[in-house]
Structures are given as structure tokens and as C-alpha cells.
């Protein structure tokens, strides 16, 4: 039973006089519990595909079904609810709120949940501990290193216990040791039942994932022959 079914998705960017077809006829199925890597050179459309899968960016054509729900047939608001419930997103630039501390950034998705304040705090603490930042709860994003910010972003994406995580180049700005720690964290989460889709262009990361799909010039392609 596939968790994600993508049919004939294409995406055209630009205005009326100059358009670029970023994605061309993408068909893809992802099963529950997979740890999927989306690989391709820069400009291949992998980030765009990820944002379309994550319900952030409507495609120009085609359908995206997640848990048999046609994501883009939902209204904007229902789509927001859907993201809140199903999806965690880790952005390439982390996108932390600059005026909130690490703990508050992690708690952010809970701000619209009706839970007691104390419970929210405990949950955020637990998640921060899980990503190894239990001692840096009160730091503001600009007081954290890139890797730490990345981990706060991951903590934020899992606090709501989503069934899917989308991560855009999560290891892109990390040194190899931190990158390894992060991938181990993803692996643990994956083993606990989380489906993860990760965009990367680093071949080393592929050792950790359960499946890799390749994208080039907006099309999914067969895996290139290893020379």
C-alpha cells in the first residue's frame, strides 16, 4: 500500500513571455516506512518536487495523493491542516524564526494545538534531547551553529509526530561527523515508523537510505551506471 502516489506531475515556472518547465511528467510511488533519497544535480528540480510532495507548492499539472488524499484538491486551509497533521518539513536554510529560542522554535507547531503549556514544553524538551541539543534550549538561532540550527529544524519537524518527513539537503552545510550523526538520527526515526524523503546530491548519504531515485532536467531517470 503506497503512502504517496504522484501521477503526471509537471511544474512550469516563469511569467507569460519566458517559461521553464521545471518538472516534466513525474510519476512516483512511495511506500510507508521508506527512507527515500531524491538525488540529482543542482537545478534538476529536486527541491521543487520535494515542496510539491510536501504540499507547499501546487504543481502545474498532475496529482499528488498522500494516504489517498488528493493534496492539491484541498483548499489552502485544509492543506495547512494536512501539513500540520501529516508532514514535517526540514528546509535547506532551516527557516527558523529568528526571534524565538531553540525551544520555542521547536514548540512552534504546537502553538496552535490545544495542549497544556507545560506538556508542550516537555514535548519540545524531549525532542531537543533526542537531537542532542538538550542544553541549548534558550539559545536564539543566531547563537547556534549551522549544524545546531539544522537539528532544531529537524526537532521542529518531528514534534507533531508526523507520518512523513521531507528534508531538503539536510546535510548540505554540515561537516561529515555532524552529517553522520544526523543520518543516524533519521535512520532511528525511520525505524520507528517514520517515512522520510530526503533531497541530496551527496552520494555518501545513499548508504543510509532504503531507496534512491534520480532526477535530471525535471525527469525521473534510471540510476546512472556506476563507472
Amino acid at each position: 500500500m503506497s503512502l504517496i502516489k504522484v501521477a503526471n506531475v509537471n511544474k512550469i515556472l516563469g511569467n507569460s513571455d519566458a517559461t521553464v518547465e521545471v518538472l516534466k511528467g513525474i510519476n512516483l510511488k512511495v511506500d510507508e516506512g521508506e527512507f527515500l533519497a531524491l538525488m540529482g544535480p543542482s537545478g534538476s528540480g529536486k527541491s521543487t518536487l520535494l515542496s510539491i510532495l510536501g504540499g507547499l507548492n501546487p504543481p502545474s499539472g498532475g496529482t499528488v495523493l498522500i494516504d489517498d488524499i488528493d493534496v492539491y484538491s484541498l483548499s489552502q486551509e485544509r492543506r495547512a491542516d494536512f501539513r500540520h497533521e501529516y508532514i514535517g518539513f526540514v528546509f535547506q536554510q532551516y527557516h527558523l524564526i529568528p526571534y524565538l529560542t531553540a525551544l520555542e522554535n521547536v514548540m512552534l507547531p504546537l502553538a496552535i494545538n490545544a495542549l497544556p503549556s507545560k506538556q508542550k514544553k516537555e514535548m519540545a524538551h524531549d525532542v531537543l534531547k533526542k537531537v542532542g541539543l538538550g542544553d541549548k534550549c534558550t539559545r536564539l538561532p543566531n547563537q547556534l551553529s549551522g549544524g545546531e540550527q539544522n537539528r532544531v529544524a529537524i526537532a521542529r519537524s518531528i514534534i507533531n509526530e508526523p507520518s512523513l518527513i521531507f528534508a531538503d539537503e539536510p546535510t548540505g552545510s554540515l561537516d561529515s561527523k555532524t552529517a553522520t550523526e544526523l543520518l543516524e538520527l533519521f535512520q532511528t526515526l525511520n525505524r520507528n515508523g517514520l517515512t522520510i524523503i530526503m533531497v541530496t546530491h551527496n552520494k555518501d548519504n545513499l548508504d543510509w537510505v532504503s531507496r534512491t531515485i534520480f532526477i535530471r532536467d525535471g525527469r525521473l531517470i534510471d540510476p546512472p551506471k556506476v563507472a
Partner: protein
Amino acid sequence: MRLSQIALENLRRRQSRSFLLILSVFIGVMAVVFLLTTTTAMKKDVADKLDQYGSNILILPDTGEALTFGGITVEAPTQIKELDMSVLDKMQTIQNKDNLGTIAPKLLADAQINGQDVLLLGVNFQQELKLKKWWKLIGTDRFHIPTSDQILVGSDVASVLHLQPAQTVNIKGQNFHVAGIIQPTGSLDTDQAIYMNLATLQTLTNQPQALSLVEAAALCYTCPIDEITRQLTEKLPGTKITALRATLQSRDDTVNRFSLFAWSLSVILSLASALVVTLTLKSSVEERTREIGLFRAIGFRRLHIAWIVLAEAGLVSLVGSVAGAFAGMSLAAGFGNALAKIQVRIAWQPNVMIYAVGTAFLLGLLASIYPAWKASRLDPVEALRYI
């Protein structure tokens, strides 16, 4: 790529941000220009209205005044000298003739009506009603100009002679209709007289060119009243020309208060607009601290950064203030009269616009250079962390 191009590109790419920046400057400058212009016009309008509220200049023959005080006459002279109609033409020959707002000539005569001696005043009704704005008329309204066979009757005359509006009275052998009764004014001069058309009274008394006195309202906003009386005295030998100090003093008092209010309004508004322009540009540069850190990181000197920021702020404040000054001035010239309910025409005042634009431009530059300098002194890393 030149530095000014960076500034220009920044403005072009971040359109809504640039638009709001320019809009702030625009509003500030427009407000100041509009209000300064209209309040100046309003001040003049108030002064003109006060000047035309009753007369402030009296032209009398130079001899033959009665022994009279506060409307109570003790003794009349045995004969009086009279003026003639040429006085009116001569008044128009003075240098400041445009400052003569209302000229109300009068002829005094007496008549016996039902055995009572009554004062007849021949007047130019149009001018008279313009001058005596406090008259309340019964039987007619202020905007109806009585015709040559109609008269206005002072309240005391009406009560002594039992006159009603629309009644007919025989004066010196001619029938007149009472067009209206003037409600008591507290001035015996007005309450105890019958007003009729000047030409009619001149014919009736057989003195076709005669005048007894002239009341005038001079507009003193641009020319002091003493100057006007001096000019009149020069052109009108054989007359006594006096300025009525009682009206003048209260006029000055009132005009001063309007000026004071207008002045404080302008000061407050100018300060506020200056603050708005300053703070808007200052905060817009502060928000770019990260960007400035980036420029520093790639090796820009402080002078380069100052140049970029100044080019941008200068352009924003120049465009905003020029547009604002034009908008404010056009609004004032186009709708100021109607909005402020004034009659004075509001003219374009290029100097106000130049001052406003100059001030806004300088303030814009000063306001943006300080935070830019501060930001460029930070280490690039620190600047990049700025939220």
C-alpha cells in the same frame, strides 16, 4: 556593476518595500505642504472676514460734527458740510485700492413721518448688507437687496411709528414699502433710522451728488490700516478720515489667535513629518544590517556602503518628497478652498515646496547614514547574525 546600480536594483527588485518607503516620505511632505498652504490662506481669509465685519474706516467732512457720544446726541451743529459722490471715485485712485473691501456711502436727511422727526439714511444696500453682517431682518432676508422703493426700518423707528413689514409709508411725498425691520442692534445709530436707496434719497432731497459720510472696510492683511488712511487723506482733502480702533484691536486679537494656532499646528506637523521620514528611513536601513554585513564580508569599504545607502535613501526621499510637494500643493490649490470653506484663492507657492523637498531630502540622507555607519562598523559575522 556600479555602486549606484546596486542601490537602484535593490529599489527595483523589492518593489513593495520601496513603494511603502516612498509613500511614507510622500505622505509626510504632502501633509506639511498642504496644511502650511491652506492654513496660511485660512489666516488671510479670517483676517479678511473680520475686516469686512463692520467698517474700520470712517470718512467724514472735516467740520461740523455733532456733540454726540455713544449714540446720544446732545447738540447738533447749525449746518454741516457735505461730501459729494466724487469721493468714491477718488478713493479708487489710491495706491492700495485693492485693499478697500467694502465701501458704503451714506446720505443723512430727516423727514417728518406721522409727526415724528425721523433720520433717513440713503445707502447702497448691497454694500451696507455686506458690511452689517450682524443685522437680523424681519420680513426679508440678508440676501435680498431692497429695490429703490423699498426701505429697511430700524427697530425703534418701527416701534414708535408702528410699522410692519410690507406696509407702505409716505416719506417726503413718495410711497415706500417696508421691506424689513432690523432687529435691535444695541446701536442707536442703526435702531433709530430708516434705510433707503441712496439715489432715491438724493433725488428726494434734491441733492443729486451729495454724501454725508462714507464707511469703508479695508482689508488689512497685507497693508496696515494707517497706511490706507494716510493714502486716503492724501487723495481726499477736506475730509476727516479715521480708523476705528475698537474694531481693529479685537480683529488683531482674533487674527493673532488664529495665527498662533496655525503656527503651532505647522510646527507640530512639520516635526512629526520630519520624525516619520527620519524613522522610516532609519529603520529601513537597520533592517538591512545583514546585507551590509555581506557587503563588508566581500570586502566593501565603509565608503562604498555609505554610497549605496545614500544613493538609495536620496532617491527615495527625493522621489517621495517631490511627488508629495506637488500633490500637497495641487490638493491645496485645487480643493483647499472647498475643504476649508474659504474664499481666499490658494496660489502655488514654489518656495514652500522647495523648503519641504530640501528638508525631506536632507533628513532622509542623515537618517539613513547613521544606521548604515553603525552596521558597517560591526564585524561581518555579527552583522550577518542580526535579526
